[in-house]
C-alpha cells in the first residue's frame, strides 16, 4: 500500500474525559484504502519540546467525508499538545502505516482492549462485522469514568465492560470477564497495556485459538527506515512499524 504524507485539518475535537479525547481529521483528497490495525504518524508542531512524530492508531475512517478518527490518551508533551489543537488547525500526517489485523469470516471473534488500547478496535469491529463475524468486545478500564465511547461499538456487535473498581460492568480485569468462561470464541484480537495483552495471549493459547496483538514500540520513523522499533520474534528482530504493529502471538517470544 502506498504511503502518503499529507496535511489534514482538524474538523472536530471531542473531549471524552480529562485523559482521553477524539480528533476528527480531514484530508483534502479522497482517502486511500485503510485497513484495521493501521496507524498514522502525526507531527506535533505547537510544542517546543516535541521533536519526533507521534504514532496513533486509526480509530475509525469515514471515506465519505475523508475523515480519519484518532482516539488519544494524554501521556506526555506530544499527546497533550495534540489536545490543544483548535478546529481548523493543520496536522501533518504520514499514513497508512503498518500491517493489519486479519479478518476471518463468519466466526466468533473476541476483542479485548484496555486503556487507550481500544483505539484500533472500533475500526476492527466494523470490518469483522462486515465479514459476517459475531463480534464481542470487552473494554477494561479503571472505573466507569474511563468507560467512554462505548456507543460507537454497538452497531457492530456486543460491547462489554470491566472496571477495576466495579463501578460499571463486571469488576476486575477484562480477561476475568465471565463471558470468557461461559462462551467460546474462534479468534481473539487485543490491544492495550502489555500485561493485559499477555493475559489475553495466555487465555487464547489455553483455548487453542488464534490471537493477534498490536504492539506499541517507540518509533522514530514509522515506515521501516530507522530500525528503532524492533521486537524480538521467533524469526529475529522485526520492525513493529512495517511487519507489525499486529503480530500473531505464535510468532512472538511471549
Amino acid at each position, binding site marked *: 500500500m502506498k504511503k502518503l504524507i499529507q496535511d489534514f485539518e482538524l474538523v472536530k475535537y471531542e473531549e471524552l474525559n480529562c485523559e482521553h479525547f477524539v480528533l476528527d481529521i480531514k484530508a483534502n483528497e479522497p482517502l486511500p484504502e485503510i485497513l484495521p490495525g493501521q496507524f498514522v504518524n502525526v507531527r506535533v508542531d505547537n510544542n517546543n519540546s516535541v*521533536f519526533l512524530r507521534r504514532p496513533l492508531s486509526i480509530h475509525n475512517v469515514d471515506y465519505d467525508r475523508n475523515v480519519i478518527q484518532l482516539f488519544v490518551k494524554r501521556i506526555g508533551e506530544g499527546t497533550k499538545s495534540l489536545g490543544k489543537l483548535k478546529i481548523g488547525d493543520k496536522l501533518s500526517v504520514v499514513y497508512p502505516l503498518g500491517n493489519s489485523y486479519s479478518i476471518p469470516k463468519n466466526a466468533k471473534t473476541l476483542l479485548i482492549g484496555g486503556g487507550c488500547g481500544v483505539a484500533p478496535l472500533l475500526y476492527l469491529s466494523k470490518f469483522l462485522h462486515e465479514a459476517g463475524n459475531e463480534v464481542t468486545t470487552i473494554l477494561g478500564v479503571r472505573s466507569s469514568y474511563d468507560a467512554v465511547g462505548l456507543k460507537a461499538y454497538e452497531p457492530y456487535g456486543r460491547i462489554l465492560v470491566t472496571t477495576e473498581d466495579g463501578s460499571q460492568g463486571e469488576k476486575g480485569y477484562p480477561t476475568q470477564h465471565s463471558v470468557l468462561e461461559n462462551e467460546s470464541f474462534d479468534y481473539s484480537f487485543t490491544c492495550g497495556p502489555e500485561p493485559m495483552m499477555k493475559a489475553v495471549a495466555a487465555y487464547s493459547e489455553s483455548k487453542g485459538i488464534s490471537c493477534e496483538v498490536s504492539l506499541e514500540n517507540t518509533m522514530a520513523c514509522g515506515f521501516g527506515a530507522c530500525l*528503532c522499533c524492533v521486537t524480538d520474534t521467533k524469526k529475529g528482530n522485526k520492525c513493529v512499524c512495517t511487519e507489525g504493529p499486529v503480530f500473531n502471538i505464535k510468532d512472538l517470544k511471549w
Partner: protein
Amino acid sequence: MVNLEVKLKDLVLKNPVMTASGTFGFGEEFADFIDLSDLGGIIVKGTTRHHREGNPYPRMAETPSGMLNAVGLQNKGVENFCQDIYPRIKDYQTNVMVNVSGSVIEDYVETAAMINELEHIPGIELNISCPNVKEGGMAFGTSCASAEEVVRAVRQVYKKHLMVKLSPNVTDIASIAKAVEGQGADSVSLINTLLGMAIDAETRKPLLSTVTGGLSGPCVKPVALRMVWQVAQAVKIPVVGLGGIMNAKDAIEFILAGATAIQIGTANFIDPQVSVKIVEGIKEYMIRHQVSDINDLIGAINLK
C-alpha cells in the same frame, strides 16, 4: 538555470544532497514519498561482513531537538546485500553508496572487497565511527593511528570512491581527517552521532538497552557545522557535511562552511520528503542570491 552539480573527486553528484546511512534504509522505504533520482546520492544501511541482529529493544529515545539511537548495525551481512539487495537497488538513477562497518580490520577489508565488485556501486562510506556496538568501529575513528590503519587496509582492496565517515567524539577531528587523507581516502564525511545517554527518572532505568547511544538531529548541528569548518580547512579532499540538517538553510550553512556535499539523516524520519525539498530549497536560495553555480558557495563563508 543554476548548476547544482558537484564532484567528490571523480564521483559526479547531480546535486549536493545525499541521504545518511541508517536513516534511509535501502532507499526503497522512501520510494512512495519521493523520486530517488532527484537526489545526488544515497548511502544505504550500515553493512558488515556478517549478519548482525543489532542491539535489543529499546533502541531509541527522543531528546530535546533530537534523538538517541542504539540500533547497533542490524543488517543481514554483505553477502546478503550483494545477492538480495543489490539487484533491487542497482538501477536507481542516483549514486548508491554502501556504508561499511566492522569490528576488526579484516571485516572491513573483506566487506569492501566484495562491494568493489558491484558495478553500480560507485563508492563506499567507511564507518569508523559507530558508537553503538562495542566493535562498531568507533575505536578506529578516535585515534589517528587506528584510523590510518583501517583506511590503509581498505584502500588496498577498494578501487572506487572511498569516503571515510568520522566520529565527532574526539578532541581533534581535523587531525583524524588529515590522517585518513594521508592514507588515500577520497573524501571524508562528518559527523556521525555524538555519544549520549538518557535515563527515565521515574523508573531509574536507562532509556536505551545499551545505556549509551548516538545523538542526532538539529541539536547536534552547531557541533557538526564547527567540525565541518575545521576539517574543510585542514584537508584538500572534499568534505561531506551532515548532522542535524533539517532544511535548505541548514544545508547552505554546511556548504558555506566548506562541505562539497551534504547528507540528510534524522530529518528523513520527520519528513520523508525533506531530501528533495532541500534540493529545491537550495535552488531557490541560489536564484534569490544570484549564484549560478553551487560550487561558488562551497567554503564561501564570509569572515569579513
